[in-house]
């Protein structure tokens, strides 16, 4: 059944954070202000690569209203940050490696004073050769951007003997796929408020996907214990991975402590583009061979990723891409070589899909090309190579078995959109102008969740009956729009029988929440579910036993319900008064009980037993079909219709699930057709949303059908799988296949260049020929 509001019944609920969002009443962290606050600004490098010879701040410090001017000399702790590897300077001191590098920061009473001071900071640079591509960075004699060289990370995977088996192939497809630098384009740019407290602590109000990671990183930079720092991190105006790493936090924190006053920073869009993370541009070369029946025998892959100047999670993204170029297929001979390269381009880093997008675009392109060469239906070819439930994962690692691969394959095969393709062009399409061509394509995906082997991936949470009688669900996750609060509320209602008013969700504040791990990698909903399952028994028991003490009823005659604790109905009265009667409200229970009522859980995201770093254990499966229209005069592609089958276990929150697939696919649409943060010589050419084009409502005219497949194998202990990223990875290859179906052109580079799809009209072709002669 397709997912929609009508079919979801009472599970389609108004989000708890909705009223504040539709009325404008919800204050985002960048909306906050404090009496006497200063405005903070960061001075960033004008050069993609240069040595710093001297920095002079005297004139800036003399500007009236300026309260602090900071450089590398003013960092009390570690002058570096990075989630995985701390190689990004807070303030550069000897060299700048990209145009977003920070050299100094200013806090002043007014924006005008801060801008004036920033303009008076003098920095002497000696420009260096700009390594604006991985090729240049890897060339012999290239300047080394880091002591370890210009390779951030290199990895590989080998199975069998591809060289030998290519000789046995009937068809071999070789292609190089190129993917763009995509910007997250969260509508709220980076920023926040940084408040030195009277007791000497620092409060950071700034969006992030993992408050405790920010606290740890800031503690290193500030040289203060983590307990001296409080990070308030939700609500967030979009993130998509882009606010996972520190951005303005070190500057806000240092300025606030130096000036002894609250400091607000809110990046302009231009500064956000310049300094912020992007999706890794990748060049993926593949050679894939199959026998005459379409069975893939050998697969060789080379991945080159442009990671920009610093690490953040570039190595982890490369590991993910390496795992996902193999896909949901049984391929007996595999050879993958991957490298992530430091350059003087913009920062690349974590972004929804996490390297899977690029890998799957390339892999699915190969599958379609093989099918085309052999004259086999592309979906049938996938069936012939499909993994089986008990097969190991792409890297040979044991994974949680599900029927997901077969389920989504079958769902797509039966979808109206795919049937339309096999039935040929429908009537209404034939009536279009003859230069408008339509086509349908599909893609087949498995996508890992969690951080993978070798990376700490804690989870957990706490349930408490608060003094005022509210049931508090306390988790260290973040709300950046995905609907985590709404999902948790519904989970609490359905698990315990509470009503919404009984529950208070507490997240996003390191002073009060436990470390539940990051809200990344499609993991938060899975971990919420597991946490609530773990706490269900103990928390119910402690509520009921306290109620038993107060009411005198035996605990096994009591149950939880809306508003309070109820007596179990008499067995023979079950038909009449099913609800029983409420004996004690939660407020009464809280005020009268003497024992604290709470439950806690802490565990680790499930991982495979393999030692392979980054290998995943839980996967979501998806099959995506897309119908497009290509105008062969302009070369423009329009998306007309989409179908997504998603096997991710039970739907925890129908509105959130639908929103994740629709929203994820919109990002994929932009990546496929229009989005590219263009750079030349290490400088951005696209600086704002006038030239960086994300989809508008007009590009989303078509239908989006989402079919969740909820069934899991009996005894599966892992519950709902992640859906935060899966919607963003399959659409690009499906569109590429649809374009091929429409106009016969194989797309290998994104965003699709309309010129490649323009059909030169007959008369113009003739003119060109004459001219050439």
């Amino acid at each position: 059944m397709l997912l929609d509001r009508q079919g979801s019944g009472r599970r389609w609920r108004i989000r708890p954070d909705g009223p504040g969002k539709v009325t404008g009443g919800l204050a985002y962290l960048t909306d906050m202000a404090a009496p006497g606050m200063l405005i903070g600004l960061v001075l960033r490098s004008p050069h993609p690569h240069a040595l710093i010879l001297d920095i002079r701040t005297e004139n800036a410090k003399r500007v009236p209203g300026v309260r602090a001017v900071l450089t590398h000399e003013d960092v009390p702790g570690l002058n570096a940050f990075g989630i995985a590897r701390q190689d990004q300077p807070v303030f550069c001191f000897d060299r700048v490696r990209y145009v977003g590098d920070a050299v100094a920061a200013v806090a002043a009473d007014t924006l005008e004073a801060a801008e004036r001071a920033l303009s008076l900071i003098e920095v002497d640079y000696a420009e260096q050769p700009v390594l604006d591509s991985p090729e240049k960075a890897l060339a012999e004699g290239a300047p080394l951007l880091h002591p370890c060289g210009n390779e951030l990370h290199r990895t590989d995977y080998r199975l069998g003997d591809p060289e030998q088996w290519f000789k046995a192939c009937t068809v071999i497809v070789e292609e190089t796929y190129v993917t763009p630098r995509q910007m997250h384009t969260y509508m709220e740019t980076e920023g926040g408020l940084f408040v030195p407290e009277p007791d000497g602590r620092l409060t950071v109000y700034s969006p992030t996907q993992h408050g405790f990671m920010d606290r740890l990183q800031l503690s290193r930079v500030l040289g203060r214990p983590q307990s001296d720092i409080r990070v308030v991190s939700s609500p967030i105006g979009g993130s998509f991975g882009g606010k996972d790493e520190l951005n303005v936090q070190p500057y806000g924190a240092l300025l606030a402590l130096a000036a002894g006053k609250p400091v607000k920073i809110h990046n302009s869009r231009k500064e956000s583009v310049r300094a912020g993370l992007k999706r890794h541009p990748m060049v993926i070369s593949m050679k894939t061979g199959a026998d005459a029946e379409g069975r893939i025998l050998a697969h060789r892959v080379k991945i080159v990723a442009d990671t920009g100047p610093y690490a953040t999670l570039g190595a982890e993204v490369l590991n993910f891409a390496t795992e996902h170029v193999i896909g949901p297929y049984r391929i007996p001979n595999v050879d993958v070589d991957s490298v992530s390269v430091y350059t003087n381009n913009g920062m690349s880093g974590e972004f929804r899909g996490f390297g899977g997008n690029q890998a799957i675009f390339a892999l699915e392109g190969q599958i379609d090309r093989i099918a085309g060469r052999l004259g086999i239906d592309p979906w049938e070819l996938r069936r012939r190579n499909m993994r089986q439930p008990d097969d190991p994962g792409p890297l040979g690692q044991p994974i949680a078995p599900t029927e997901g691969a077969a389920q989504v394959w079958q769902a797509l095969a039966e979808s109206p959109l795919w049937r339309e393709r096999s039935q040929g062009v429908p009537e209404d399409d034939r009536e279009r102008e003859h230069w408008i061509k339509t086509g349908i394509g599909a893609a087949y995906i498995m996508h890992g969740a969690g951080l993978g082997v070798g990376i700490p991936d804690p989870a957990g949470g706490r349930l408490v009956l608060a003094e005022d009688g509210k049931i508090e669900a306390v988790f260290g996750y973040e709300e950046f729009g995905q609907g985590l609060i709404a999902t948790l509320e519904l989970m609490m209602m359905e698990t315990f029988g509470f009503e919404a008013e009984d529950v208070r969700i507490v997240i996003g504040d390191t002073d009060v929440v436990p470390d539940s791990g990051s809200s990344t990698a499609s993991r938060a909903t899975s971990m919420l579910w597991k946490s609530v399952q773990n706490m269900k028994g103990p928390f119910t028991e402690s509520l009921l036993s306290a109620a038993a003490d107060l009411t005198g009823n035996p605990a096994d005659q009591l149950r939880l319900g809306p508003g309070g604790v109820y007596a179990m109905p008499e067995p023979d009265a079950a038909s009449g008064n099913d609800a029983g009667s409420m004996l004690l409200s939660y407020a009464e229970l809280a005020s009268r009980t003497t024992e604290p009522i709470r439950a806690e859980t802490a565990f680790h995201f499930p991982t495979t037993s393999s030692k392979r770093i980054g290998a995943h254990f839980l996967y979501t499966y998806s099959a995506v079909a897309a119908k497009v229209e290509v105008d062969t005069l302009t070369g423009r592609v329009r998306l007309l219709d989409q179908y997504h089958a998603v096997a991710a276990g039970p739907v925890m929150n129908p509105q959130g699930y639908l929103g994740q697939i629709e929203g994820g696919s919109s990002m994929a649409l932009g990546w496929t057709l229009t989005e590219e943060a263009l750079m030349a010589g290490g400088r951005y050419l696209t600086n704002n949303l006038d030239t960086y084009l994300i989809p508008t409502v007009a590009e989303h005219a078509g239908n989006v059908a989402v079919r969740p497949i909820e069934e899991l194998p009996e005894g599966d202990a892992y519950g709902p799988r992640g859906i935060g990223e899966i919607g963003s990875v399959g659409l690009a290859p499906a569109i590429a296949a649809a374009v091929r179906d429409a106009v016969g052109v194989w797309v290998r580079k994104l965003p699709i260049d309309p010129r490649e799809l323009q059909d030169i009209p007959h008369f113009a072709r003739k003119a060109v020929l004459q001219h050439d002669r």
Partner: protein
Amino acid sequence: MIDNRTELAPAQSRLTLRVNGAACEIAAPPSTRLLQVIREFIGLTGTKRSCEIGRCGACMVLVDGEPVNACLAMAYQVQGAEITTIEGIASGTELHPVQRAFLEEGGFQCGYCTPGMVLSVKALLDRSPDPSDEEVEEALSGNLCRCTGYGGIRRAVRRAIELGR
């Protein structure tokens, strides 16, 4: 209200306008952007700052009923005008039908584009209560949403049209 700029304003630059029905007199230089006037001088933060070049619509407000990007209007251009921000369209605790439609259909995720989006829809439906899909696309093309893929937004607009019937 956090006002970091008042002291810079020459005494003679008094901006008078009505915001959500209330008369305001503000000491703002004539070139101050309406976005700053609303967020920083008046302290209404439902009007969001995002691209600041009039592309994304996060700062959309109604100026005498017409949708305008507040980042592109200057104080002198709204002298005497009636400004409606997202905070001004509900009647007391009763949400505007467009707000209700967005709530019920889930026409938002992070919510940062929502105030501007809701105001653009309101302006459209005030002008044309039963718009075609093309009119809806035209009216909302200046409002970018990165979270929803516009599915929930389209459903909310349809619902708002129904509620208005």
